């Protein structure tokens, strides 16, 4: 009898223990509901932009304008790669997942790696290596901007056009899908961090400076099987194909290389598209070249196009629109509108209605001279002669743009939109970069800067989405490739090519704190917390840094 009681007692203990384990396991699963309601768990950073709205805003408020001066370095993780560190890490329940871009020279540690680190100490748990052919690269580096997570699985695109799924617990490969087999005359590198929507992994490919036909595709999260594909250039039987002359649509570019956003209410996912190809040869592709340099709104279940807005019709200036579409409700002319905010590479800040795609307003946020205004439908009115093929004309912004892929930020608390930008940067005739000092694509090492303000400089600007007017700015001497993070503590974090990482007052732009990190800041900062302590993380040079308040 006593023995039977002991057995029953043991069984009960076992059942309770198994239940606890099961509950913990369920909690550890990153469901799409958790991703959708990331605001409920600000300790985590579950997606590239922090939430599916693309806001790069943290609800953590431990770090404030009053105490940010007490930030101190907690840990550094040094990547063995010598490529630009453009990844935004994600953090799930104290584990940080980041990506080492494949290096440019073959070394033992030089391949793409997903790395799991302890978010409080930077100590590595595991790393998953994915070999990339040395020939695989995007136009401007062998970069990777990060992973996505759903359940216990990490998802990453690769430079050789694969989408892979990796077990987040132990770093083992679950599946490997070929997104596209590139033709001999083009490459389709994937640099973008995927976006998870429900049970699908959405991803696009770069390569739009070459002869690709860009697309966005959704894959089943469990199997890796493609569910839908949306070509960013319409086919012969689709509306918009006649915006390309001849056969130019087949190789018209319009790649995807920055993560999109998602609106659960309308089930629309929004993505910015890249430049038409060939960039500087407009006559070879007459017409507006849809849907290059656009934002497209797609049904997340089917990939069907709901609406589009083209920022730069028939672009010759490489004005990719691959900026993060930021979703926020904005008061416009006395009414709250479901807004989509996008600070474009072409130098203009836009407010669209994200439900219908209606153009609400647009305004330069840097010096712009290629257009003079908009028509009633929001089409830009070009200034004659301000184009790449005009030999004697300096065009602003430059072919490298007013901003680029690096993320802006929107703070629902301050109601301000923050963007890193290049000012006064201009391209001379023939599309050459103007100014006596060139402004190259991002690098890793600090480089001397002797530019004058007339030749271009970097700036973090705060814009009021209601008017698109500038509220404040923080000026740098050199240009910037760094994204922006805003927090509920009313602090804005960013950096630049000078290698400083700094904190600004979200309401005034006043400099609150800075630290030189010894390498260019090419990524967007993010924030998370572990055991109640807020961390700010950013990559610079080839390393990842994490800061917290001094204890």
């Amino acid at each position, binding site marked *: 009898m006593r023995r039977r009681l002991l057995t029953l007692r043991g069984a009960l203990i076992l059942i309770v223990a198994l239940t606890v384990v099961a509950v913990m396991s369920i909690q550890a699963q990153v469901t799409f509901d958790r991703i959708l309601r990331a605001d409920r768990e600000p300790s985590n950073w579950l997606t590239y932009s922090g939430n599916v709205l693309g806001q790069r805003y943290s609800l953590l408020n431990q770090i404030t304008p009053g105490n940010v001066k007490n930030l101190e370095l907690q840990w550094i993780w040094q990547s063995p790669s010598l490529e630009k560190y453009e990844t935004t890490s994600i953090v799930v329940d104290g584990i940080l997942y980041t990506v080492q871009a494949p290096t440019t020279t073959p070394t033992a540690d030089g391949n793409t790696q997903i790395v799991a680190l302890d978010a409080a100490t930077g100590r590595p748990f595991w790393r998953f290596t994915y070999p990339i052919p040395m020939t695989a690269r995007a136009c401007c580096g062998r970069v990777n901007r990060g992973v996505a997570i759903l359940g216990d699985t990490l998802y990453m695109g690769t430079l050789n056009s694969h989408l892979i799924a990796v077990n987040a617990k132990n770093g083992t490969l679950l599946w490997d899908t070929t997104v596209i087999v590139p033709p001999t005359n083009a490459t389709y590198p994937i640099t973008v961090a995927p976006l998870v929507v429900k049970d699908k992994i959405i991803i696009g490919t770069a390569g739009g400076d070459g002869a690709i036909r860009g697309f966005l595709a959704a894959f089943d999260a469990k199997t890796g099987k493609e569910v839908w594909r949306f070509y960013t250039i319409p086919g012969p039987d689709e509306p918009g194909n006649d915006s390309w002359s001849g056969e130019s649509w087949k190789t018209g570019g319009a790649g995807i290389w920055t993560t999109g956003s998602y609106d659960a209410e309308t089930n629309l996912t929004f993505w910015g598209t890249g430049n038409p190809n060939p960039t500087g040869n407009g006559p070879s592709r007459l017409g507006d070249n849809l849907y290059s340099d656009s934002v497209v709104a797609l049904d997340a279940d089917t990939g069907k196009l709901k609406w589009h807005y083209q920022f730069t019709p028939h672009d010759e200036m490489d004005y990719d629109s691959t900026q993060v579409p930021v979703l926020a409700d904005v008061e416009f002319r006395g009414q709250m509108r479901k807004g989509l905010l996008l600070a474009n590479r072409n130098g203009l800040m836009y407010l669209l209605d994200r439900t219908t795609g209606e153009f609400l307003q647009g305004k330069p946020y840097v010096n712009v001279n290629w257009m003079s205004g908009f028509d009633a439908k929001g089409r830009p009115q070009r200034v004659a002669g301000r184009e790449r093929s005009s030999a*004697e004309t300096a065009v602003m912004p430059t072919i490298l743009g007013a901003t680029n892929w690096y993320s802006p930020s929107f703070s629902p608390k301050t109601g301000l939109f923050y963007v890193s930008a290049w000012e006064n940067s201009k391209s*001379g005739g023939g599309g*050459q970069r*103007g100014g*006596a*000092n*060139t402004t190259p694509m991002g690098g890793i090492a600090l480089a*001397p*800067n*002797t*530019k*004058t303000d007339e*030749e271009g400089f970097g700036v973090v600007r705060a814009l009021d989405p209601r008017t698109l007017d500038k509220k404040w700015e923080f*000026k*740098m*001497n*050199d240009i910037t490739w760094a994204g922006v993070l805003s927090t509920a503590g009313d602090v804005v974090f960013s950096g*630049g090519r*000078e290698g*400083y990482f700094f904190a600004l007052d979200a309401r005034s732009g006043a400099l609150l704190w*800075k630290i030189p990190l010894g390498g260019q800041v090419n990524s967007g900062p993010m924030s998370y917390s572990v055991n109640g302590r807020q961390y700010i993380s950013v990559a610079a040079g080839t390393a990842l840094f994490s800061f917290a308040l001094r204890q």
Partner: protein
Amino acid sequence: MWRLRVPAIILATGLAISPSLYAQTAPDIALPAGDATRGKAIFEGTKGNCRSCHRVAGVGSLFGPDLSAIGSPPRGGGGGRGGAAPAPAGAVAPAPAATPAPVPPVPGGRGAQAAQGANPATGPTPQQFAQSILDPNAVVTPQNRYVVLKMKDGKTISGKLLSVDTFAYQIFDSSEKLANISKENIREATMTSPMPSYRDKLTTQELADVISYLTSLKGQ
């Protein structure tokens, strides 16, 4: 005889300067044939006092661009910092000029950079040399800019601009020291060459002589 009008020049950075811009800055004078030996004497003597700021073959100041190979095509397409060639190994820097001018002349402080790399195949043209000497502020490459920093304590610091960031200037100052100058201590900063114009200091013949000498400098 050189007519100081050219259709275009290419700077060390590869930046194309339009004919109209050159026409605004280039002196419209004719030059006789020059004598490099006489030019060398002017360069090294008190009249030019060029070595108080420039170095040739290991002799002279490091403050201005090294002109040891200024007559050669630019290396690597131009754009190199400082002079066209490094000082020879083992070269000993000379003592400062015995009779320094009140404002140290820096031939080429701006103009010499325009001369550097002006012609990728043959080196600078005589016209570009002349412009550099007569109007050193007319054209300058970013790699050879100079700053004058007026400090809040009343001092003035000048130097070659190595880099400027949001918070500080990094310069090679007139005493040949590397210095990081915090912007917090600066009242006013101007990017201007300390090199004076030689328009009223050299005759046309002397100018031609100096240009002949500079053209002869091919480095090692």
